[in-house]
């Protein structure tokens, strides 16, 4: 192979940036897509966003969320959330989400998992909607005025089907095991991360570590790679998903999550958690 063959077909030089510089690229008011907790929850970046004092974020959880959404909501960073569910799973309700939803300090746009996936897939194709079976008769359809029921245009009539509009996030943010020196990110079989990146205008990623070389030099790694041209920036954040787990890397810290579920039941408890685990919010410049 010509010594410059790889350079010529791929990116020019790439280097990770700092975590604070990464989250600085998420403008207040952004439509921000984040994955579920089994798929690389960007917890270090979430804490950095809270310290930055991010405001008016509109979250899209793909398709649900646990601690990440609860922290962002509790810290006052979120104005609206489209989600199929927010919960702490085995540890019960997500206390900040529940409080904010009831007090209507956030707007909850209730969805269902396949509709969020379909909305992102529509953006992947840059088409205005995708149809989905099922869901008709759910009260979600009544309240989601942006979802439309039409008669199947390919049928013989009398076959109602639901159309889900494209979801086009401003920013996708997730945590992954590694990025390479060309800026490609390895996501393994967590292909919803690829879908989120494809659908979003910008993708920001934190990783456990940098991988020397290119994933595309090894077909086994290439199969789990997300190409650099989808990715705006990468920051290294070791244990960046903790206390949530990271696929293939580490398990969730169950004691931490159990303690959070208890502590955040009161606003004072949540404030104490935030001060201890996240740190002070930086004064606005």
């Amino acid at each position, binding site marked *: 192979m010509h010594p410059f063959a790889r350079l010529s077909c791929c990116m020019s030089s790439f280097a990770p940036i700092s975590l604070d510089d990464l989250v600085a690229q998420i403008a207040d008011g952004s439509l921000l897509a984040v994955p579920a907790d089994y798929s690389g929850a960007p917890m270090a970046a979430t804490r950095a966003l809270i310290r930055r004092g991010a405001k008016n974020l509109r979250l899209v959880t793909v398709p649900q969320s646990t601690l990440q959404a609860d922290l962002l909501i509790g810290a006052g960073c979120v104005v609206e959330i489209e989600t199929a569910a927010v919960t702490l799973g085995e540890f019960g309700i997500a206390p900040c989400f529940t409080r904010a939803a009831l007090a209507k300090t956030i707007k909850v746009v209730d969805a269902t998992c396949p509709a969020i996936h379909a909305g992102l897939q529509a953006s992947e194709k840059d088409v205005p909607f995708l149809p989905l079976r*099922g869901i008709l008769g759910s009260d979600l359809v009544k309240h989601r005025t942006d979802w439309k029921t039409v008669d199947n245009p390919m049928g013989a009539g009398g076959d109602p*089907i639901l159309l889900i509009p494209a979801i086009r996030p401003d920013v996708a943010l997730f945590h992954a095991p590694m990025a390479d020196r060309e800026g490609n990110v390895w996501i393994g079989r967590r292909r919803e991360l690829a*879908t989120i990146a494809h659908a979003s205008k910008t993708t920001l990623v934190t990783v456990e570590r940098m991988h020397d070389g290119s994933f595309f030099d090894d077909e086994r790694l290439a199969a789990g790679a997300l190409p650099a041209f989808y990715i705006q920036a990468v920051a290294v954040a070791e244990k960046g998903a903790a206390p949530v787990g990271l696929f293939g890397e580490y398990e969730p810290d169950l004691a931490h999550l159990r303690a959070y579920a208890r502590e955040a039941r009161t606003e004072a408890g949540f404030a104490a958690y935030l001060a201890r685990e996240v740190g002070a919010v930086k004064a606005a410049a």
Partner: protein
Amino acid sequence: MTDVKPEELLAATLAAQIPDVRHIAVGAASPIPAAAALLHQMRAKDRVHVTILHSRRYNSFTDGGRELFDAAAQGRIDVFFLGGVQIDGEANINLVGLGTYPDLTQRFPGSFGAPYMSFVVPNVILFREEHSPRTLVPKVDFVTAPGWSPDGVWRRGGPKALVTGRAVLAFDATRRRFRLASVHPGETAEGVRDATGFVFDMPDVVPTTPVPDAATLGLLRGPIVAKLREFYPDFADRVFPVPA
């Protein structure tokens, strides 16, 4: 059989609702349905696939979160379990909240994939441990997933049965009604009727839910809890504590 734990009875009872199928899937935070699916798999003569979304080992999807829903849309998943904070007599379930949406008095986590899975999966088994007028209501406050659909609406499946901590009720989607199928040991048909907020059909003779036999208990307490411990450590420790 006083030494049978309620969770063991429920797992065996859920397993008994599973017909001969190829693929059983279990959603989030469902340790008892997961135990039931694994029990069915271990006793089946033919090969049965079990997908437990909570697990890494029992989750072989490689194409992202949408793959479950796409596979289900194609009919590749035969059985799915759904819960409901409220369930009503027409098998509608509510996972969203109490009150008049969006003015809720109580907020639950959300709908997850229920409004979809309930349509595309042929055999949906409803499961709710708490059997009381609070959970089994005349009409749910919010329909997350309808129990039945009018003619002309495409629907492959839906709820077939409801298993609770007190009883098994079979659902007939054409009549839009439950019928009491059995009461668990220690329960009576009248007691179940009083604990249920909706009206259901009562047969003349109500059988008692069979308790799991020794072989079933051996599977639940042996290989199945060992598997569950990987992805439901808290549940495994609570129900099947490791002897000191």
